[in-house]
């Protein structure tokens, strides 16, 4: 995980840079799947309907917890490798950030890592549903 001091923008830029290293889809896919492997295991308590994100082609769970330092901790998992990789990218960029920053974040980096087929929100592949869920958690924490 990136240091808690780096901002969402900084982390997103880092992700974009990493993906730019690959000039073919195979490299990018491998890297994405690799990200998923690094995602911490989701506690069983969260593997329930309440945390499931609808509208994805695979099963996806996303949960959030407030940290003592006032930031928001994200947890996620999926039964598909690619979706798990995408969830890992989102967690990597948004984890341990202030809820307000998450709620107002612009996740344009998703368009810049050369994987449009999974990432364009109008394509309704479920990524937008994940993002919306994460922002929803952030908004409700920000409101507390």
């Amino acid at each position, binding site marked *: 995980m990136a240091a808690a001091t780096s901002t969402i923008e900084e982390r997103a830029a880092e992700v974009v840079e990493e993906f730019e290293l690959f000039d073919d889809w195979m490299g990018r896919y491998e890297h994405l799947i690799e990200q998923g492997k690094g995602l911490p295991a989701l506690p069983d308590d969260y593997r329930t309907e309440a945390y499931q994100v609808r509208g994805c082609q695979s099963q996806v769970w996303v949960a959030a917890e407030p940290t003592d330092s006032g930031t928001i901790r994200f947890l996620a998992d999926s039964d598909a490798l690619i979706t798990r990789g995408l969830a890992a990218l989102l967690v990597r960029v948004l984890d341990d950030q202030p809820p307000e920053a998450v709620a107002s974040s612009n996740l344009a980096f998703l368009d810049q890592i050369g994987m449009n*087929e999974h990432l364009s929100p109008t394509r309704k592949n479920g990524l937008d549903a994940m993002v919306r869920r994460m922002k929803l958690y952030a908004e409700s924490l920000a409101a507390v």
Partner: protein
Amino acid sequence: MQPVAPRLATRTFDVEQVRSEFPVLSRRIHDLPLVYLDNAATTQKPLTVLERIDAYYRSENANVHRGVHTLSQEATEAYESVRPTMQAFLGAGSAQEIVFTKGTTDAINVVAGSMSRGYFRKGDEILLTGMEHHSNIVPWQLAAEATGAVVKVVPVDDRGQLDVEAYQALLGPKTRMVAIVHVSNTLGTINPIRQMIADAHSMGIPVLVDGAQAVAHGPVNVQDLDCDFYCMSAHKVFGPTGTGVLYGKAEWLNQLPPYQGGGDMISAVSFERTTYNEIPHKFEAGTPNIAGVIGMGAAIDYLSEFDIADVQRHEHQLVAHATGELEALGGIRLIGTADQKTAVVSFLLDGLHPYDVASVIDRFGVAVRSGHHCTQPLMDQYRIPGTLRASFALYNTLDEVDRLVDAVRRARKFLS
């Protein structure tokens, strides 16, 4: 219609240029150039719309929403990109308030049908007007029959204007729904819907607007109007048949139960329990009219190239010229002479049946509609069998109006 920030025009309105973009306008009828004045029934389509539909089928066709393969993703993107287009066109607050339907009739049935599932109770009143199209009457009659609600009617005066005072008096504690036509297809009357919506809202009553005839002829902004539902058909605004839009405020769409069941409108299905998808998808069951929706987007893009004020000015000229010349013929009865009118001229020739006149002027290459225009209650009120209706669009010309008037003159001579 209410003023809204004008869309940004990207070209000057030039009717000859416009005509060259509508292939059908070069057709000949009975060896004469077609004069198409049946635009209120359906409009013709510009090349860009035809080309967009063709391109879709030639290189992008796939089913939407459920596929991960490239073609399906591209089709989904093309289809979903029309939602923001329609959102901007109607001035909706959010793209999720845009439900794609078969057309206006379907859109009204979605609302009336959904409202029959728990919203309407016995004795509730549904308020319509005397100038509604059958598509904004029969769905409510079916809903009334199913729920025990009753339909009430706002009267229309001799010139074809709503009696707004009577409307206000009819709004009452039992009124649960108001459904009004924005622009009458038979009379051309533009109704004062902004005021009527405010009146209904002051008593907590939702309003559906039938915008079938409005969207091709002036700016519409649903947020500004504050209507709860707005319905339109693509085919009446230069787009393909078989598609249209139901705009609904998110709070209404969220609250209403789904209308049809099937693929795409669900979130999870089991025989024990089915949960529904989010709006707008909750109201879009089954494979949609993908090519139609994409074609509708192209039609709106086309229309948006113009400053709608230019179009209105042009159509106003056509109506003024037609009205003047027809009246000058004598022996003509105009039906619908409201102060606020769009591009429709309905009339009768003394002593002649509209069917006979329409048949004969077709022989002169002129296409107008004759009949009740799906507004039988209005015909009953005026005690007429129907009218002849010339309805204009942006591609009609003053010359065409002259051909209409000439054809009418000759038809009368022939039939008398």
